[in-house]
């Protein structure tokens, strides 16, 4: 369980996180949403101590993590897999080498590495790409590699920072599907940071909306979407998310639509009507 109490984080004088209180239970998928620059990534990075903070505490599985140092800190991080928005793959290495990176850091034998990587590559669905370089993969495949690397040390937690934001809607769905499977099948607790509402809506159990550095709202995802509070509407741009909607269709605001149609007409481009 992750327990955050009274967390305050400042960069110099600027308060980025202000009194965050949050509990994330084992086995759940928890979503953290908020507008850009509100401190979502900062909060997530506090969880594996990539960032330090000034006040408050974070306990993970009953351990205060703030003062973990050197070897203890590195051991602790093994239990917190992290997935990145831009995949963070080593471009000069193959998929196999990328996935095995954490194992190589922890001194696993060649045989163990081969066995674990091959197994996990099957789970995430990139077993046929192991000898490719990242540049030859699609975005979705790259993120599968990123997820496999984050899972290779068998972490209990998976921290995802905008892990689908660089992907198209269809690929996003397939990655979300994968995260859901990992959660259900392997009981991995997942924290998802995102500004995409459809991400939380489709996989998260509970969520928190961050505004102005603190938690504006927290609860079950369906409750929050049903209630459709001002905070949620701020994030979604007044759309009514309580009703069933097809999020795979990207909405273009009316004026923007008119302009585009205008340009198409002007240039005598047949736009299919």
């Amino acid at each position, binding site marked *: 369980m992750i327990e955050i109490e009274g967390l305050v984080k400042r960069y110099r004088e600027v308060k980025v996180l202000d009194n965050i209180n949050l509990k994330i239970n084992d086995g759940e998928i928890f979503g953290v949403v908020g507008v850009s620059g509100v401190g979502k990534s900062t909060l997530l*990075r506090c969880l594996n101590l990539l960032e330090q903070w000034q006040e408050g505490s974070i306990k993970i599985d009953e351990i205060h993590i703030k003062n973990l140092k050197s070897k203890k800190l*590195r051991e602790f991080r093994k239990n917190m*897999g*992290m997935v*990145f928005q831009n995949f963070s793959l080593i471009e*000069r290495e193959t998929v196999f080498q990328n996935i095995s990176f*954490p194992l*190589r*850091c922890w001194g696993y034998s060649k045989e163990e590495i081969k066995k674990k990587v091959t197994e996990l590559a099957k789970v995430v669905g990139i077993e046929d790409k192991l000898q490719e370089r990242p540049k030859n993969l699609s975005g979705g495949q790259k993120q599968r590699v990123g997820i496999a690397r984050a899972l290779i040390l068998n972490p209990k937690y998976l921290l995802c920072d905008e892990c689908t934001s660089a992907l198209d809607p269809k690929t996003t769905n397939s990655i979300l599907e994968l995260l859901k499977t990992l959660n259900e099948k392997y009981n991995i607790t997942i924290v998802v940071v995102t500004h995409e509402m459809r991400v939380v809506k489709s996989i998260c159990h509970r969520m928190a909306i961050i505004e102005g550095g603190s938690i504006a709202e927290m609860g079950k995802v369906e409750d929050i979407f049903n209630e459709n509070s001002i905070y949620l509407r701020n994030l979604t741009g007044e759309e009514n998310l309580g009703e069933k909607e097809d999020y795979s269709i990207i909405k273009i605001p009316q004026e923007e639509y008119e302009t585009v149609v205008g340009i198409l007409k002007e240039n005598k481009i047949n736009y299919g009507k």
Partner: protein
Amino acid sequence: MGQGSRLIEYLPTVIVPAIWTTLEMIFVSAILSIIFGMIFGTVLILTDEKGLLPNKVIHFILGKITDVIRAFPTMILIVALIPLTRIVIGTSIGANAAIFAITIGCTPFATRMTENALQTVDSDLVLMAKSVGASNLQIVSKVLFVEALPVLVSNFTIMLINMLNMSAMAGAVGAGGLGAVALTYGYQRFDNAIMYFVVAILIVIVLLIQGLAKIIYDKLK
């Protein structure tokens, strides 16, 4: 060949040995400069404000020493180093003395080249490595140097060509090698054929270095 040129006569006795001396000087001082440059460049990256082990004092001092040595014009540096060269090597003439001077002259360059190459690595990769519990040494060896290797190679190629330049200048103050041959026979004895022949050899060496570096770079990329 111009009349009175002794190029053919000197080819086996003077020029060929000079080629070997020059190659030896470049080779040994390149290896030394690259080793020291990679160490100091890594220290600069590590001790940077945003580095893995921020340390203002070390970063500042190392950075300043690097810049000061780089500010010296090559020829003046070689001459200014003569007393130190005498103490360390025992003499200020010959290939070993030149290797000492060139290494000191090129290490700051190699340091900045290393720093520059490592800076090209995406900082998210460092976060990634930290997040899986990699140690600082592992981040440097398994991420930074792996990802920066092609840039490192192309940066060091520039340095190598600079070194050829330096070794030729060192020839003027008793280092031997092609630079000394060009100066003694070309400049002092007005044997233009020998001078231009030496220049041609230097051009060939530059082209060889660049060609080889290109092949290595393409392989690594």
